[in-house]
Each structure stands twice: as C-alpha cells, then as structure tokens.
C-alpha cells in the first residue's frame, strides 16, 4: 500500500477508517447543534441530540420502545410467514406448467405493481383499525413479491437441464427435488431479500395509517403532537432493525447458498 514499503498493520488501517468514518457524523451533529445559533428554528422542529438521547432513554426504560418493537416484530414475522407460505406452493404449481404460467404472469405483474400500502384503505374496511390491516398488507406485499420470484426462478432453469433430467428418466418427485427446487432456490432466496425489504416498508406504512400500536404508529402519533424527538428515535430504531436483519440474516444466508453454489458473484 505505502510507497516506502512499510505496510501499516491491519488494525491500524481499520482504526484509521473508523476514525475517518466518524468525522462526518461528528460534523453533522455539530452542525445540528449549531443551527439554532444562526437561524431561528422552533425547538419542536429540531430537537437537540441530547433531547433525542434522553427520549431514547425514557422510551427504553419505561418499556414503551421494547413493547412497540415486539408488536411490530411479531406482525412482521406473521405477515412474512403467511405471505411466503402461500406464495411458495402456489408459485411452484403455477410455474411447473408453462401454459398456466403464461396465463397468470401478466396478472401477477399487475398485482405486484399495486402490492403494499395501496391496500391499506381497503384492509381497514375489511379488518378495522389495528393489527388486522397491518398483517394483511405485509402478507399481501410478501406474497406477490415472492410468488413472482418463484415463477421467475423456475423459468430461469435452462431448458437443456430440464430435457437432460427428463431424458435420464427423471419424473415426479425426483424431477421436482433434483431440478426444480434447487434450480429455483437461488432466485427465491435473492427474491426473499427484496420481499423482506418491501414487507418492512409495508409494515411501517400500514402502521402509520391503520395501526394503533407499533413503531410506525409510534412515530406518526408522536408527529401529531410535535414529539419530534420520539419521531427521530423511531426512525433510527427502524433503520437499525433493517440493518441487523440484512447483515445478520441475509448476507450470511446468501453466502451459504447463492455464493456457495457459485451461481452469483458475491458483492
């Protein structure tokens, strides 16, 4: 790396990048604290970093944040499981027959285009306010995203492979287990990440409009009484949840499956 041939140790390099990475957030926080000295901003529009920290502490210690996180998390899991459980068998069934897949695909594309928060108003009519519409909208989002990926996954299996397996006498369960499932799995797993990203957005959006609890509801409810500190705490918690989900669940999962099979270069 360096011109004089003395490579800095790994640790030092890491420390340097962490240090560099911290400069910008520090500047942002400093600018944030400095704004009220230069421009007149009503306090409710720009709470100080300290206030947000305090609010985080209050919400954590009285258990509110933990509770909302639990409520939102369980809805997310239920919606995700429901949507995936319905989409997998249906998607495979559709995709196994090329004619059925041709018939159903345009409708799927259309439903995928409207999946998500646009269903919230109808879901409120059907289930009333509360967790009913939230779970429905998550499941709906995940369902159409996943089913589309399953169909595409099966279709991405090269015809040569299909013919090869067939001509070797593969039929029924064997054909399904040895070719269709592994062949489609990559697209399904990659698609699951997209589905989860959409599902999380559905969760937050639906809770804001139709919820009576949960993280999304907490932020929109706080914004109506100008509790900006709570709004910002909620935003940060949602971001951390998504970050952890992505880093702790998906990247290892992709590494174990997609990358291991050498089907997609890991980035």
């Amino acid at each position, binding site marked *: 790396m360096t011109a004089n041939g003395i490579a800095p140790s790994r640790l030092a390099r890491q420390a340097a*990048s962490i240090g*560099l*990475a911290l*400069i*910008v*957030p520090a500047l*942002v926080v400093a600018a944030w604290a400095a704004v009220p000295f230069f421009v007149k901003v009503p306090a*409710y*529009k720009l709470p100080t970093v300290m206030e947000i920290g305090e609010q985080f502490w209050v919400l954590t210690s009285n258990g509110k944040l933990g509770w909302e996180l639990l409520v939102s998390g369980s809805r997310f899991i239920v919606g995700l499981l429901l949507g995936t459980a319905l989409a997998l068998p249906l998607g495979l069934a559709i995709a196994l027959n090329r*004619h059925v897949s*041709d*018939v*159903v*695909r*345009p*409708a799927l*594309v*259309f439903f*995928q*285009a*409207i999946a*998500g*928060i*646009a*269903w*919230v*108003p*109808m879901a*409120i*009519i*059907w289930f009333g306010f509360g967790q009913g519409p939230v779970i429905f909208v998550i499941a709906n989002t995940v369902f159409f*995203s996943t089913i*589309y*990926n399953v169909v595409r996954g099966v279709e991405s299996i090269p015809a040569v492979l299909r013919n090869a397996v067939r001509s070797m006498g593969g039929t029924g369960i064997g054909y399904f287990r040895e070719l269709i499932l592994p062949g489609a799995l990559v697209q399904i797993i*990659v698609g699951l990440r*997209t589905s989860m990203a959409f599902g*999380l*957005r559905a969760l*937050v*959006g639906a809770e*804001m*409009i139709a919820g009576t609890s949960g993280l*999304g509801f907490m*932020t*929109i409810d*706080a*914004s109506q009484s*100008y509790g*900006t500190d709570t*709004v*910002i705490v*909620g*935003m940060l918690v*949602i*971001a*951390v949840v*998504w*970050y952890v989900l*992505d880093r702790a669940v998906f990247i290892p999962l992709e590494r174990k499956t997609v990358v291991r099979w050498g089907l997609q270069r890991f*980035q």
Partner: protein
Amino acid sequence: MSWSAQTKMLKGASGIAAILLLWQLSVYVVDVPPHFYPSPAAVWRAFIEMTEKGILPSYIADSMLRYLLGVLIGTAIGCALALLIASSKLAMRMLGPMIDFLYYMVELAWIPLFVIWFGFGLPTILVAVVYVVIWPVLFNSLSGIRSIQPSLILAARSLGGSRWQVLREVVLPGMLPQAVNGFRVAAGFAFRALIFGELIGAQSGIGYLIFESTTHLQTDRTVLGMICMGLLWLFIDRNYLRPFEKATIDRWGMVVSHDS
C-alpha cells in the same frame, strides 16, 4: 410480433379476463354490502363518472408531475453526489459508512418528520420522492465506481489523461451500468413513496383518491385508484424505464442484472 409472442399475450389477457369475470361473479355469490366488496361493474361506473367530471385525469396529471419532478431532482442530486464523492478517495472513505447507514433508513419512516418540517402538501411529497431517489442512485453509482479496476484508471492517467478525461472516459462509463440499475430501483421506490405521500398529505393525486374515498365508503373509487396506480406504474416501467435500460445496455454493451 411473432406467433408465439402473440399466443403468449393472448394467454395473459385471458388470465386477466378470467380474474375480472370471477370477481364479478363472486360479488353475486357473497352477500356483503357493496362498499365492503365493490364489483368490477361499480368500479367501471366510477371510472366513467370520474373521467367525465375531469377529476381522474387531473389527479393522474398531478401525480405524474410530482413523480417526474421528484425523480429528476433526486437523480440529479444522487449522480452529482456520487461523482463528487468518487473524485476523492478521502471523501469516499469519510462518507461511505454514512451513506451505507442512510441507505438502511427506511424512507417511509422519514415522512412524519417531513410532515413536521414542511407541513402537509406538495413540499412534503416532493421531498419524500426526491429523498427516496437519491440513495439508491448514489449507493449504486458509488459501488459502480468502486468496481472499476484501478489499473484502468492508472492506464488512462499514464497515457496522459487529465482528471476530467479520466472521469469522462473511464469513471462515467464504468459507473453507468450500476447507476442505471440504481435508477430503476429508485424509480420503483419513488412511485411507492409518491402514493404513500399522497395518502398522508395531499389534496389530489392517485394516492389521495385511494385514501380519501374510503372515508366516504366509496370503495369503488378506492379500487379504481388502485387499478390506476398499477396501470400507471406498468406504463412508466414498460414505456420509459425498460427502453432506457435497454438503450444504455446496447450503447455500452453492458449487462445489467434484473431484480423485480
């Protein structure tokens, strides 16, 4: 159009027709109030009525204008930021983690804050769309720039290329495939953000139609709004985004990975 493409289209149309037919028939079978389960016929009547009154066209125009404006501004800011950051290694190392973090902030979570800052109305919607567009464009452009082999840049330099020439001849073309990919993702997110922004803070537009009509139990209009939303998105995607992507691929001979 080839014969097989024609049959494929016919099959797809038959699928949609079957759904419409089943939907209409099921309305006769299930015994629920019409606002609970509006029939396709009722949705069609709502479509005719709202078109004749001129409400629907003006809502669509409003939504499209907001969308277009937001996507253009967001893409411009995203690309400019990417080039600015990429022009300095130090800036890249300093800003990289911050951008990674902001990428993970769920866009919808910003909306309550935008409402506090900008009030209900056009500014909030526009800011939400712009915000949603910036990150995927910036994030993908940067990772495109990161994926350029350093030897290419060194080669261009040693052949006497100026900073500007290196940027134009090596960095920009290297960045483009990923940037285009990011743009497509952004365009999809932006459409959802637009609808959501209109659900929460607007007096017109498709999102407003979807939300407002349910409070008067005019759910035929709600479903009409949802169908308009789907058709609008497919129209944008097929007529503008896909050809744009294809054009860039043809021009630079690049392969862009497709996702959703």
